[in-house]
């Protein structure tokens, strides 16, 4: 992965470009994906990551090959930031046999264990123990790999949050729990779910190094995550990071999100993580507007090609499905 250069706040153009590419690619995937959904090409559930792109982008930039991630129901952004193939993602959403899960999983279950992606998850809070388990497996095999669970504010009120983070703590696992605090558990605001909305404090109570970061700032997320990874590789994990953010829309595509106050939405949109990634790239490197346009055009073309590829793909046959069932 690209590394930050020596002077603080001085990033290489390559690194800044990678941050922007990732954040923007997630934005395009979700924006275009919603269009496909509205056209009826994507069925089932689609939980957009719009507005939260900075977190997956910053976190994954601090990880290396061999590390592991576990994700949530809102998982497209994590997959993309982890380097997933957009073609196979779109194909999965379109139920095709060329998708990551051959159409057996769908949006909420994209996984690729061959590269350490333990998968999205339809059960809020479930990624926490699964991630801790992967960290435990790595400790047992003597690997210094770090496992990250992307989790949510909603999940912090689930019992698995305490149970798993506590296990990671007593076993000193190389584990980072990233709580994406988008301030809504489906439609229930954080203030109604807990008396202490600063969620990082939960980790402190069980002896876990814990931090809070602006989740809409990809570089700030990257910096805190880089430190967390270092802490882990020194054997001093786990680490909890609370990344504050806000969704740009409701819980899923069909949820208008009318319960989200306009002023707060405006506040966060003014701090849009993709805009900030673009601005950082422009301000801190010699890239030209034309070159940025070219990156955007390239990503748009990649998505279009993925849709074309998916439309031309087939589906698992009933015969193959029955054979799978007989062996299950």
């Amino acid at each position, binding site marked *: 992965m690209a590394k930050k250069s020596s002077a603080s706040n001085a990033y290489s153009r390559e690194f800044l470009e990678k941050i922007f590419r990732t954040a923007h690619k997630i934005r395009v995937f979700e924006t275009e994906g919603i269009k496909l959904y509205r056209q009826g090409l994507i069925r089932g559930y689609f939980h957009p990551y719009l507005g939260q792109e900075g977190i997956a982008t910053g976190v994954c930039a601090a990880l290396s090959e061999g590390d592991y991630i576990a994700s949530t129901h809102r998982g497209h952004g994590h997959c993309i930031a982890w380097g997933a193939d957009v073609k196979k993602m779109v194909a999965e959403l379109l139920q095709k046999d060329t998708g990551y899960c051959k159409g057996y999983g769908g949006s909420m279950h994209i996984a690729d264990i061959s590269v350490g992606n333990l998968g999205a998850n339809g059960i809020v809070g479930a990624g926490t123990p699964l991630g801790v*388990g992967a960290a435990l497996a790595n400790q047992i095999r003597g690997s210094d790999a770090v496992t990250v669970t992307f989790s949510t504010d909603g999940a912090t009120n689930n019992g698995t949050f305490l*149970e798993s983070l*506590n296990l990671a703590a007593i076993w000193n696992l190389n584990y980072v729990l990233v709580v994406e605090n988008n301030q809504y558990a489906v439609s229930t605001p954080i203030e109604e779910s807990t008396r202490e909305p600063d969620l990082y404090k939960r980790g402190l109570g069980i002896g876990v190094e814990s931090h809070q970061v602006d989740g809409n700032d990809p570089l700030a997320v990257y910096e805190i995550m880089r430190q967390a990874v270092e802490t882990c590789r020194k054997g001093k994990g786990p680490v909890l990071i609370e990344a504050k953010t806000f969704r740009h829309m409701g819980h899923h595509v069909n949820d208008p999100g009318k319960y989200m106050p306009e002023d707060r939405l405006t506040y966060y949109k003014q701090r849009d993580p993709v805009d900030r990634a673009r601005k950082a790239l422009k301000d801190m490197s010699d890239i030209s507007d034309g070159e940025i346009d070219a990156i955007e055009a390239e990503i748009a073309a990649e998505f279009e090609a993925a849709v074309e590829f998916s439309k031309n793909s087939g589906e698992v046959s009933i015969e193959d499905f029955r054979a799978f069932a007989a062996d299950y």
Partner: protein
Amino acid sequence: MYREALREAIDEEMARNDLVFIIGEGIAERGGSYKVTEGLLDKYGSLRVRDTPIAEAGMIGVGVGAAIAGARPIVEILYVDFAMLGMDMIVNQAAKFRLMTGGDGRVPFVMRTQGGTGGGVAAQHSQSLEALFYHIPGLKVVMPSTPADAKGLLKYAMRQDDPVMFLEHKHLYMTKGMVPDGEHIIEFGKGDIKRSGTDVTLIAWSNMIPRSLEAAAELAEQGISVEVIDPRTLVPLDREMILQSVSKTKRAVIVQEANRRGGIASDIASIIQEEAFWDLDAPVEIVAGLDIPVPFNLTLEAASVPQKPDIVAAVKRCIHQDNYSAAAE
């Protein structure tokens, strides 16, 4: 002994594969409530044999996650009753991961636990919950009745790639029996004839095997020859062995300690009537626990699950049915 056979299986597999590890409550220093893991901490160290806090959802989930990531965990849960705290991890994660990943993701996860009545440990420590797991596609359900089966099946469980609910019985840990020397592995889906007979097929598992064998011995004295068969694994189920035996004896009695409603006995009965209806000389009998939580009072506890006289009576009813139909002809 049953518990020693289990220990041997874990010991041998830990020696064979560095990715096998075991976690649970009080299993390391203390050696487990049933002494199954005694000595393993000294032999394999605290990296691979570790105690957990009382956090079943967490420990089952961590086991499932470790399995997905390629390790071979055994999670020991003190009582099957406590596994209810981790059902999301078992039902929604472990059982479904292979399908959700289109077949690529595997979960070589073994949950060892124990169930059943015995000794007045009351409603929350006495259940037979195998039907819950049996119902969920993707889980293997194993219920050994003898030391040899316990060892052979546990070794196989630790080598295959699907989540296994390995359900021991609290009354069996001290039972004795021969265990074959050397590498002893029993594949899933292969039942065992525990006693050969010709008049009635008696299908049972776990602690209902010794009880059924006692009943069969008593019936033999009365001239009734009972074949006692033990599927050993409920998922996968050795349908062939059951159907072969039933086609020979023409009668079937199924005995389960679990309560009757929605139980595995009912499912086996439906398989028999579908596949062997024309072979039957009498309706299939089911002997099962009452549809009520297990009471503490020892007399009532005993009354809540099948006892030897219940099994004997069911076999006789089965034979009697035949006499009725013969008389009617």
